[in-house]
Structure formats: C-alpha cells, structure tokens
C-alpha cells in the first residue's frame, strides 16, 4: 500500500483565504467585543446623552471632555485613585516579592504547597464579596477587627466612618487581595532562573540582595512589567470592593475614578459625560502602560 506523501506547505504558500479562515473569526470576535463598544463610548462621549432625556440628545463635540477636564470632582477622584495606586502597588510588589523569595527557598515542600494554595484564596474571592466582608469586619461596634484590636488594648477605630481610616481600609483590603497575585507571578519568574547560574552566584556571594539584583531580577522583569500594567489598570478601575464597602464615602473619601464614572453614568444617567470620563481614563491607562513597557524593557535590554 503506498500513499503519496505531501510535503508540508511553506508559510509563504498559505493562501489568503486559509489565513482569513483561521484568523478571521478571532479578529472579528475581538473587534466586536472590544472595538465596537469602545467606538460606541467615544460616539456617546460626544453627545448630550442622558438615558432619561433621550428625546433631547444631540451632538455636542468635545463639550463633555471640556466639562470633565474642568470638573473638580473628576480631578479629586483621579487624585485619590493615583494616591491609592502609589501606596498599594509598591506594597503589593514588595510583600509579593518577599513571599515569592521565601517560597523559592529550598526545603519545606509540604508547607510551601499549602502556602501556595492558600495564596489563591484572596484573589479568588469575588471583589464585591471582599467589600461586603469588609463592611462587616470593619464595623465600628460589631466588627471583628476592632474586637481583635481591643484584646491588644487598642481602639475602637471608626474604620468606615472616618474619611482617612476609610481610605486606609481600602488600601489594606486591596493589598490583602492582590499581594498573593504578585507573589505567584514573581514566584513563576524566579523558577525561570537557571539553577546552575543561581548556584554559581551563591558560591560567589552570600548577599541575597546581590543575587536578587544581578541574577534574579533580570528574569523577573517581564513578570514585573506585566504586574505593573495589570495592577495599574485594575487599580484605576477599582470599583466593586469599594462600592459594596463604603460606596465612595464617607463624604467623597473613597470615591475613586471608577465610582465617579458609575455615579455619573448609572445613577445620574448622564452616559455622555460618563463616557468622556471613561475615555480619558482609558487614555491615561494606555499612556501608563506604554511608559512601563518602554522603561522596563529598555532597562532589561540595556
């Protein structure tokens, strides 16, 4: 029995139809899911578009953008969001790196497996549930946090009723939920360091800091960049946890940018203004991501 064996086609000889057949559905789906809603948001942002006043909707050009850029509430919310980012993200990275380095050390295999598994729990918990838990746990009178602090002779603290403490509570909760994610990504990065190089480095120096800086860090940079981009984007759009825990209050102490957009778009129903806010937020996120990539990748290449 003989069969004619065809040689595999060379990439250059694949027809356009075949390429489109394989790639087309994915590209079209992505465009429908990602680009069409974005285009609609941009279109909406240039209209006077209030859901409860649709009869008088009209094209108003960049008026919504001008309103947003001159709106003190928008910049206040932006300021709060970046303050949160500037405090929470470094903490998550530092604690995450610490946990990753501990788990990377040889020995205690069983305990490390348990630790790795338990790290998944915070980030597997739904954001909104984390917020609801916070509402109960940080309650001034009945919350377990004040009860525990009471055993140490501290408090009680008005975690959710005091503007500064409410902000601290949000930072604490965000760090609690997302440090494990950073730890796991960085741990994955550490496992890519060739053991022989690491071993050779250990023979050269006893300083873990030197090993971290010169041997491990270069392997961690791709993971770190991904973490910076993901955590920045996530923090900029942080909503569920804060909404269920403080609803942006007390006052406007925890009204981050995503809460402001939700308030304008879905409570005051001004979708035009909310879309303009969201588009500006998107632009800021993209600019930050590009900055991270160009800065960190340049460093690793150099």
């Amino acid at each position: 029995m003989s069969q004619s064996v065809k040689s595999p086609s060379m990439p250059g000889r694949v027809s356009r139809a075949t390429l489109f057949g394989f790639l087309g559905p994915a590209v079209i789906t992505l465009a429908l899911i990602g680009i069409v809603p974005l285009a609609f948001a941009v279109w909406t942002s240039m209209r006077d578009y209030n859901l409860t006043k649709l009869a008088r909707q009209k094209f108003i050009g960049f008026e919504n953008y001008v309103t947003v850029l001159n709106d003190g509430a928008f910049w206040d919310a932006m300021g709060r969001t970046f303050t949160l980012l500037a405090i929470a993200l470094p903490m998550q990275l530092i604690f995450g790196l610490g946990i990753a380095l501990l788990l990377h050390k040889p020995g205690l295999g069983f305990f490390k497996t348990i630790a790795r598994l338990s790290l998944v729990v915070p980030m597997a918990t739904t954001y909104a549930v984390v917020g609801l838990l916070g509402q109960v746990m940080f309650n001034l009178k009945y919350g377990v946090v004040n009860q525990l602090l009471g055993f140490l002779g501290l408090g009680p603290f008005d975690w959710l009723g005091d503007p500064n403490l409410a902000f601290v509570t949000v930072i604490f909760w965000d760090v609690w939920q997302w440090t494990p994610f950073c730890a796991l990504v960085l741990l994955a990065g550490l496992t890519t360091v060739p053991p022989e190089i690491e071993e050779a480095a250990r023979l050269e120096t006893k300083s873990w800091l030197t090993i971290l800086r010169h041997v491990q860090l270069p392997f961690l940079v791709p993971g770190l960049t991904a973490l910076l981009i993901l955590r920045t984007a996530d923090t900029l759009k942080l909503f569920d946890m804060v909404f269920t825990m403080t609803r942006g209050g007390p006052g406007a102490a925890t009204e981050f940018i995503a809460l402001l957009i939700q308030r304008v778009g879905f409570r005051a129903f001004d979708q035009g203004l909310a879309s303009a806010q969201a588009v500006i937020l998107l632009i800021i996120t993209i600019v930050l991501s590009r900055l991270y990539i160009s800065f960190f990748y340049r460093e690793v290449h150099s």
Partner: protein
Amino acid sequence: MKLRTTVSALALTAAMAFGSNAAQAWSLEEAAKPYEGTTIDVVFLLRPGYEAAEEMLKDFTERTGINVNLIKHPYENALGEQVRDFISGGDLDVALVDLVWIGNFAENGWMVPIEEFTSNPDLADPDLDLEDFFPVTLDAFGTWDGTVYGLPFDNYSGLMYYNKCMLEDAGFDGPPETWEALKDEYGPALTKDGKYAYALQSKRNETQSADSFARMLWPFGGSFLDAEFRSNLNSEESQTGLKFRQDLMQYMPQGIVAYDHAETVNALAQGDVAIITEWSGFASSLKDPNTSAVADCIEVAAEPSGPAGRKPALGGFSLAVASQADDDEKAAAWLMIQYLTSKANAEKYLDLGGVSARQSVYEDESVRDKFFFADALVESWQEGVPEFRPRFAEWPEITEIVQEWGTKMMLGEVTTEEGAEEIGTRMEAVLDDAGYYDGEKPLAQ
C-alpha cells in the same frame, strides 16, 4: 396639583357609585378571562412588603390565570434596571415607582395614566375608591402634574421608635414631642455609659439625602427649593435645620455617617441607642424577639415636631402600568395592581407584613390593636409633605450632590453654609440645564 387629583378622584368615585349594571356585576375572575395565560413582568424589591405581595399573588394567579414574573432587585439597582428596560423597549409590564422617580417616568412616557383603565368598566373594580387612599400617598407616590399614574403599594412614613425602658430609667414617661426636646432634654440624659440618645442613619446613598438631610429641613421650615425653583438651602430656616443636625450629632454614635438602615435599626434593637427615626417598614422586625434584644421595650410614635410642624419623612412606591406593554399585558397588569392595592385585600397585605395606604383598613379597631405602629402611621400621613424630596426627573442627579455635600457637612469638612452653597449652585445648574428657568418645563416637583 392636589386639587386636580382630588377632582379626578371624585369624578371617578361618582362614576363608580352610579355606574352601569355591568359594573355591579364586576368580578376579578370575569374581568381576567380574556387575559388568561398572559404573563406580566414586574420588578420587586427585597423588602417585607414585596414578600407579602408575592404571597398574595398566588391567589391572584389562581383566580385569574394571569402569571406574574417577579424580577427581584435591591433598591439601589431598581431604578437603573427599569430605566434600561424602558429605553430599550424591554419586557417590563409594570413600573415600580418610588416617589422620587415619578417625574422621571412620567416625563419619559413610560407609564399609562390610570384613567385609561378606570374608564373601562370591564377592567375597573367598582370598589377601587381612590379617595380611600391617604391623600398624601396618592399625591406623592402615584400622581404627577395632576395625572394619576400609579396606585400606592409599598408605603412608608418616618416614625419614631424608642426604647421605653431606657427612657423610663432616665426619668421620662414618654418620647420627645419636639426635636428641640430630643436634643436638649433627652440627648444629655440618655447619652452615657456607651449608650446614645439618638441615631440618624446618614450613609452616603439615598439614606443621606432622604433620611438625614431632608428630615432636618422640613420640620424647621426649610426646603430644597423656593417658589422660583432656586435653592432655598441657605435660607434661615434651612440653615437652622442643618445646624440642628450638626448639634444633634453629639448624642449620636460615633461614625454615624456610615450608618445605613440596618445599622440604625440594629443599634436600637441591641439596646445601644434609645431613639431612632426610621421607616414604618421596620416596625415588625423591631418588635420581633428573634431580631430584637429589647423587643418588649420598643414603642413607636410619630416623629417629633419642629417649629414648622411635624412634616415627617415620606417615602413609598406605587405600581403603574408600563406603556411598553401590549394591550393584553396592560390589562392584566392593571388587574394585578388593582388587586394588590384594593380595599378588600388591605388587611391581608398588613397581616403578611406589608403596609397598606388604605384609610379604611385602619378604621377597624382590631387592626389598630394588632399593628402597634398603625396609630403613629395614620397620624404621620396626615402631615406628610409630597415634595419632601423633589419628585422631578432631575432628582437622581441632585440626590448625588446632596449625598456628597450633606456627608461632608456632617464630617465637618465644610460648614453648613458652604455645603448649602455648593449643593445650591450645582442643583441650580442641573435645573437650568433641564430648562426650568427659561420656561421650557413647568415648576413641578
């Protein structure tokens, strides 16, 4: 507006009283026959009155063959869900209308005036009797610009709940009659040993604007708007009320700006607070030994009076037929609304945990004995203000402003004058944009 409502109610009552023979033979089963098998979609909240209605709907479906699909939401989501459904021509056949949504729903044409059904003898129950509803509830919850759209369904008034035992221990033989007495006499006497005289739910959501901010405006003669629809928040009366709230905070638990209804009711139920002013809907849980550690001590009265009278908090929902429903669904929806809010079913609704707005049911001595809050409720509804919160379409935008700056006032981040100025400026900008100042829209609230 009230006059026009009253006139239409009278006309309808007359039509019912002297109606045709067909009207006399009216029965729910006969009226529903053409619509048997119809399914109607309605948004319900996760509150006791809705559980009561759900129970009653079993009987309704059995008698009529009309199925009711309940879509349950917490209050905070109910407006958004309905707005999105109505603008996209969705499935809802009934509008659940909070009193502060009615201007919005009416201006957008999302509800059918009840006249379309009450003028149809096949659908109108001869015992509908609109005059039997407490006038303030029909005016505030169901009527906009003189047209009745909905029938009062889930009805609330602010009431004063107090811990009789704590008051007696402090030497008081009854609750405070006035807000001043609460602050000057009850406040100092009851705030001690980790207990507080009073708690005013003030969380930054509708609770801040409705339960906290507005509650302190009206009894002191203040209001959100003056007759020209300009901000009235910096008037002497409004400022007196807002400053009173600041003064009263010394007798409230720490962190009161984080207190929503649950925390406030719980504070009274656990014996940590002596007096609260809360919605009538919380009466049963406060008297229930399973949910209240001091159930035997809990008593209820109408809210205290201020210099301008009692003017208690007013809130509630009506049910209206949605314009987007088809004709069969509209008819079926009307029959359901009429059934749930009828005189005949008022006591059953009360028994199951709802609060009826039918005057006749409270005339029965046994009902007043059975429901300990009934007397206070009836008294409160005599003095309610329909525009306790403005009911126009712009309220969703304005309440957000009030929530933010009202909380900032309480936290001392701004003075009451500064806060009132901020709210006033922003509120007027919203109203200006809506066209109230150039005569485009009538000054209705």
